[in-house]
Structures are given as structure tokens and as C-alpha cells.
């Protein structure tokens, strides 16, 4: 059973290293290796640029989601104000809203703002994440009030309380939100396909998708597979280091 889970990855990596003519008959290890598929791919698409774009977009979104999620989550958990419950239910409601409703109008908003082919189109709509807010709210609720009161007596501003005093005690939440946000943003394809047409702004999965369906690979399987390997590599490397956290984060996201 485990083999059926590893074999496709193994086959893909091997095939990307196989000369085009031999891929058809490849089942295990190729008779001869070549890097031509990779060289051909680098010549056809700006994959390096796309990698940097993806890194940039995913990092900014992850940072933003953590900062904004912590601020809103703290306000909902530890401060009292009119409309607090209303906002909490608004967040729950937004989470249950199917994205099919907002997809078209959000595209139109981006067009009207003049953000098509801009990084802002890829980043801004994802900076606020309902799930992250609820995660932070949950973990701030379990932080003792005495810690906050003591910090206030010392004259800390609320922002310093959140990010300096309380952050060290909610590290597991930060890791979970960080991993989930980074992973989903890294793998997102539909939204970039809609708002970006300029190859220099494209994220990596988007570029690989268009390369693979658009006939740019000239029906060359090896080149197509090489681009898929390169797309899978960063997240697989991250996974091999932080496996435990990946699994825990995903599990907690499902349990919510």
C-alpha cells in the first residue's frame, strides 16, 4: 500500500531525468539519464522568476495572516467592546460561505482597482484569514488575564502585549497558522489564473499549469514532468524537515 503512495513520485522524478523517447517505456529506473528536460524547461519558461514570485507572495501572506489574525483574535478574546459577538458570528458565517459566490465579483473588484497583473491582486485578498483569527482567539482565551494586567501596569501598549508578551506562549498556534497558510498559498492555482496574465508575475503552480495545458511544452512529456518536479520540490523539502508540524497542523485544521 505504501508503495502505491511513493511510486508515482518516484516515477515522475525518474521520468523527468529520462530522454523523451524512452519515457513511454519507463516503469522503474531509466536506461540512461539526462538533464536535457530541465535545461529545455529553463529555456522555455521563467520558472526561476516564478519560484521567487511564489516565495514572495506566500511569505508576505503568511506574515500578514499571522499579524492580522493575532490582532483580531486578541481583540475578540481579551477585550470588551460593543459588537464583539457580532463580529465573531460574522467570521463564522464568512467561513461557511461557498467561494463560488464571491469568485466573479472579486475578480471584478481587482479589475476596477487596476490590480490585474500586480502582486497586490495575489496578496491583499488573502491577508485576512477567518480560520487564523479563530485559532488565535482560541489560544489567547487560554492565556491568563494576570499576564496581560501585569504588562498593562508596566505600561506596555496593547500591540506590545500581543506581539512581545503573549506571542512566546502561543508558539504552537503561530506554527500551525504559519504552515497552513504558507502551504495553501503556495499551492493556490485558481485565483492566480484569474488575476494574472503576465508571465513575470505568475506564481509557480500557475506557470506550471499553463505550461502543461497550453501546449508550450510542445507535447514534450519530459519537460512537463521536470516542471512538476521543480514545483513539488520546495514543499517536499519543507515537509521532510517539519513533518511532525505539517501533520499536526493539518489535523487541527480538520478538527476545527
Amino acid at each position, binding site marked *: 500500500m*505504501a508503495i*502505491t*503512495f*511513493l*511510486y*508515482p*513520485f518516484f*516515477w*515522475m522524478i525518474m521520468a523527468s531525468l529520462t530522454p523523451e523517447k524512452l519515457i513511454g517505456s519507463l*516503469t522503474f529506473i531509466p536506461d540512461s539519464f539526462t538533464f536535457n528536460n530541465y535545461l529545455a524547461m529553463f529555456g522555455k519558461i521563467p520558472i526561476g522568476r516564478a519560484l521567487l514570485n511564489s516565495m514572495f507572495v506566500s511569505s508576505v501572506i503568511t506574515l500578514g495572516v499571522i499579524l492580522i489574525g493575532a490582532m*483580531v483574535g486578541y481583540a475578540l478574546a481579551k*477585550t*470588551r467592546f460593543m459588537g*464583539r459577538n457580532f*463580529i465573531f458570528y*460574522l467570521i463564522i458565517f*464568512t467561513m*461557511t*460561505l*461557498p*467561494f*463560488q*459566490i464571491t*469568485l*466573479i*465579483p*472579486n*475578480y*471584478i*473588484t481587482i*479589475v476596477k482597482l487596476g490590480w490585474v497583473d500586480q502582486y497586490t491582486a495575489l496578496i491583499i*485578498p488573502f491577508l*485576512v484569514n477567518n480560520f487564523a*483569527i479563530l485559532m488565535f482567539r482560541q489560544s489567547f482565551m487560554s492565556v491568563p488575564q494576570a499576564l496581560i*494586567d501585569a504588562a*498593562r*501596569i508596566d505600561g506596555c501598549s*496593547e500591540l506590545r502585549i500581543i506581539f512581545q508578551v503573549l506571542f512566546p506562549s502561543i508558539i504552537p498556534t503561530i506554527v500551525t497558522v504559519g504552515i497552513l497558510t504558507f502551504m495553501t498559498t*503556495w499551492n493556490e*492555482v*485558481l485565483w492566480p*489564473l*484569474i488575476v494574472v496574465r503576465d508571465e513575470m508575475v505568475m506564481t509557480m*503552480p500557475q506557470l*506550471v*499549469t499553463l505550461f*502543461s*495545458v497550453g501546449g508550450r511544452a510542445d507535447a514534450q*512529456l519530459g519537460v512537463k514532468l521536470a516542471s*512538476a518536479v521543480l*514545483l*513539488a520540490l520546495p514543499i*517536499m523539502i519543507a*515537509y521532510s524537515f517539519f*513533518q511532525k508540524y505539517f*501533520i499536526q497542523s*493539518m*489535523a487541527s485544521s*480538520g*478538527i476545527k
Partner: protein
Amino acid sequence: MQVRPKKKRSILPYLLVSPYMLFFLVFVAFPVLFSFFLTFHKWNIISPMEYSGMDNYTRMFNDRLFWKSLRNTLWFLVIHIPLQIIFALGLAVFLNSKIKFKGLFRSVFFLPVIVSGVVVTIMWQQLYGFNGGVINQLLNSIGLGRVGWLTNPAMSMPSIAIMATWKNVGLYIILFLVGLQAVPEHYYEAAEIDGASSWQKLWYITIPAINPTIFMVIILSTIGGFSLFIEPYVMTGGGPLNSSLSSVLYIYKQAFEFYHMGYAATLGFAFAFIILIIIVIQKKYIEKKY
């Protein structure tokens, strides 16, 4: 503590939640209202919007492809959900027993979960190949014929459902494991004293106990089925003969290939409505069952 000025604290929460409110207004409230408004209009973004009354709705009810994409999605769910539950639960029970390399197996099953759907789709497209595909080579070598996984209209959606099961099973294994570990050990001990078989223990103790997890898997898979996009887009383009046209792919085509914004918004509303109805029905049915 009371020394801190009260006034400062009273506006601060609003400042903290202001990014959320801004987001809600721009990317949730406005789009929902505007989308509803769009369903009564004809618009290709460039030329001025035209009021079209109920045209989009009547068009949808008579649109063969709308029904086709809905049927395709339901067909996907009918295959995918049982497969997903059987495999995830089976492997979770296996991993929950006393075996070696438990962590290693878990990591391996989880690998497809973290990798982009694009990668998984490109990979499986090759495995499903008619002549060179590894699956058909295997079937051929044991004497069974070749299957047109992606070329036969009757097989394209089941093929995508199998691939989706493979991709997501790792996540559901983890969720089931969490559920299984919460079942008290003495339930099983009591059943053993009464002479229950493994199947009886599974059917009468395990499944009722992890019913909430099963329900969650069904809901998540349903939402996933209605979100299918990249898989048919990359693998089949919705074909052959629209047999793998998914709901989101159809919205995408109407909006970004034909620029029928009003009609695409109408489809978006219809599918969202259908998802919510299906989830309500599932909730009712499954909660009644136990």
C-alpha cells in the same frame, strides 16, 4: 490597574478589528450583494451592463452543460466519498494497531496531501495514459485489457475520483486516528468477553464512536467535490464530451473564456445554494442514523 485611562481601551479593540472589517466589506459583503445584482444582468466587463431580468436563470435551467456539470459533480461524490471513507478508515485502523514503522507509514500516506494538486494531476495523467501509462501496462501484463481512464467518457470522472481519494486519504487517516484514540479501550475488552468478532467490533463500537469524524469527512469531501477545478482543467480540459466538466470549471469557462459575467455569477449562486442544501441533508440524515 484602574489607573489606565478607560477611554484609550475603548477605541483600541475597534482599531484591532478594523483590518477584518475592511476585508469583510470589500471581499465578502460587497461581492455577495454585487454578485446577486449581476445575476439580473448581462455583462462582458468591457461594454456597459445590460439589465436582463430573469434571463440568466431561465437560461441556466435550460442549459444542458449546467445540468451536466452538476451530474458530473454528484457522480464524483458518489464514487469518491465511499472510497475515501473505506480507505481512510481501513488504513487508520491498521495504523492504530501495534505495527512497526507506524510514523513512517503515516508520513508516506500524508505526502500527497501537502503537494500541489497540479503536481498530483500531471503525475496521474501519465499513470492513466492509454498506451504508455503504468496502470494500463500493469493491467495488460496480468491479462486484463487496457482501460481508457481519461479517454472514455464513462471513466473520466471515476478516474479523477480515484486520484482525489489518493491525494486526500492521508489527511483523513490522521483525523480518523484522532477519533480512534478517543474510543475507550474497555469497550473493546467488554466486547471481547462477549465473544465479538473483529467485524462486529468495527461495526458496533468503532463506527458509531467515530461517527462525528465520518460526518466531517463527508462534509469536507462534498465541499472538495464542488471545488474540483485544477484536476479536470489540467488532465482532461473537462472532456471527453464534457464528461469531466466540474462545476467550478464551468463557472471558470463562462466567466473567463466567454466573459459572461452575469451568467457565471448566476451559476456561482446556484452551485453555492446546492452545496448548502446537500450539507443540510447530510447533516440531518447522518445525525439521525445513530
